[in-house]
């Protein structure tokens, strides 16, 4: 006889729910967590947050200094993204199947990119802190390395995807390697490249805050400073300013994307 599939599903669902409920209850018992207390604490926490985190007069007096640091951080993120992308593109050309000079070199390029990409930006910041100390270089290179690894990876894929056909056509005309890259691959990949660079600028601005907290520079340092000196209203103003900056950059890059794509 055919087992009823709907009854089976219902029984499975009940079983999963039962297991989940048992796990939850067990965890509550083990950690001596008071459910009622936990829920009633939420409104109180919100009230405290509103009282302490809403930027006050004192915080707004610090705005020029915050904006100054913000500008520094944004510019550094842009510099890291653009310079790393230029290097990334060069290495991607070595790595892509269409344009590589030698398979071994391609493997090397992909490997390098993988290492740079898979070490997190915070890890890079802490590693580089030893070399460059508490300076803007530390943050710059942390962002640079991660952007570089990412751009190499995505541009290798873009190059192979977008330009294999036209590269074959240009090779058939007898065009040299440099001409094939500048006349076929670059024009074909440029919109994607620009799009990825914009994306990395956005990501870098977000990461820069964290990197700043870790390395004691830029807007992240300012946030850390205010936060640790219990100056919560100023710290929250820093956060607000960062959010506004990220939104503005996103809007700007979306506009640019629409134009180039």
């Amino acid at each position, binding site marked *: 006889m055919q087992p009823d599939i709907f009854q089976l599903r219902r029984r499975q669902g009940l079983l999963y729910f039962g297991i989940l409920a048992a796990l939850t209850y067990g965890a509550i018992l083990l950690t001596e967590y008071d459910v009622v207390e936990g829920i009633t604490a939420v409104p109180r926490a919100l009230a405290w947050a509103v009282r302490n985190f809403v930027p006050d007069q004192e915080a707004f007096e610090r705005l020029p200094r915050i904006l100054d640091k913000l500008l520094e951080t944004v510019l550094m993120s842009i510099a890291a993204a653009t310079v790393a992308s230029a290097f990334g593109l060069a290495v991607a050309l070595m790595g892509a199947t269409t344009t590589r000079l030698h398979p071994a070199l391609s493997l090397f390029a992909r490997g390098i990119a993988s290492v740079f990409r898979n070490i997190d930006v915070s890890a890079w910041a802490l590693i580089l802190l030893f070399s460059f100390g508490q300076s803007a270089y530390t943050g710059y290179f942390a962002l640079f390395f991660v952007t570089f690894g990412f751009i190499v990876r995505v541009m290798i894929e873009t190059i192979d995807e977008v*330009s294999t*056909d*036209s590269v*074959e*056509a*240009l*090779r*058939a*005309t*007898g*065009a*040299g390697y*440099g*001409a*094939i*890259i*500048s*006349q*076929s691959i670059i*024009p*074909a990949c*440029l*919109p994607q490249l620009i799009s990825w660079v914009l994306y990395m600028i956005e990501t870098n601005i977000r990461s820069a805050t964290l990197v700043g907290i870790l390395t004691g520079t830029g807007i992240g340092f300012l946030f850390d400073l205010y936060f640790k000196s219990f100056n919560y209203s100023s710290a929250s103003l820093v956060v607000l300013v960062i959010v506004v900056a990220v939104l503005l950059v996103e809007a700007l890059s979306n506009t640019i994307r629409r134009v180039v794509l």
Partner: protein
Amino acid sequence: MALLEIEALIKRYGSETLALNNITFNVQPGEFVAIIGPSGAGKSTLLRCVNRLITIDGGDVRFDGVSVPALRGAELRRHRTRIGMIFQHYNLVNRLSVIENVLHGRLGYKGTLQGILGLYTEEEKRDAVRIVESLGLGEQLYKRCDQLSGGQKQRVGIARALVQQPKMLLCDEPIASLDPNAAKIIMDTLRDINRSTGITVLVNLHQVDVALRYASRIIGINKGMVVYDGAPGALSHAQIHQIYGSEAGELILELSESYAA
């Protein structure tokens, strides 16, 4: 003297697969040769051996007295400039304009720096415009190629091959992605070029009826071997069977009968 002499040509993919097995034939200047055969017979591989987009594993290919298999570097590039190539998928840089794509045909004649910067002489530009206009694309000169229809794109591909001032055109399934009307325009164009300029045409085709209508000579290939080489009129049903293998028989016979009628 023959323009193209192919002698005992062998091409392997991997260590096992024999893509071209002992191919031998000559092409005289001004001939319009159609190469027919089933998918995977080695037609594309054969064309790519002629302009050395791929390496040759055995035998000899002589083009205009020059032995092709051992060519390298600048000599290989010079060899390729003398042969134009047209592709099934057009292989244009879609984001560039018609005239820019057509001028790519001149890159084979450029030095490294000129090629990278895309510097073309006034004369080259005038020549390119003249060819584009003669193919009926004068209106589209500055249009981006992604705005063109398939037939127009293929004419851009032909123009790019013609500005090379080649002695021979290699056409790899030039009409396989086109509707019947556009296909007729492309085949008529190739025949006109062949007749008015005397440029030798070597064209891979799927459609037997098209090959019979346009070619002055048919070469049938099956499993990497030449199984027919002769005039279109002398091609019998039995021989078409042999080229395509017996399973495909019925459809092919109908096709060639409708052509004969």
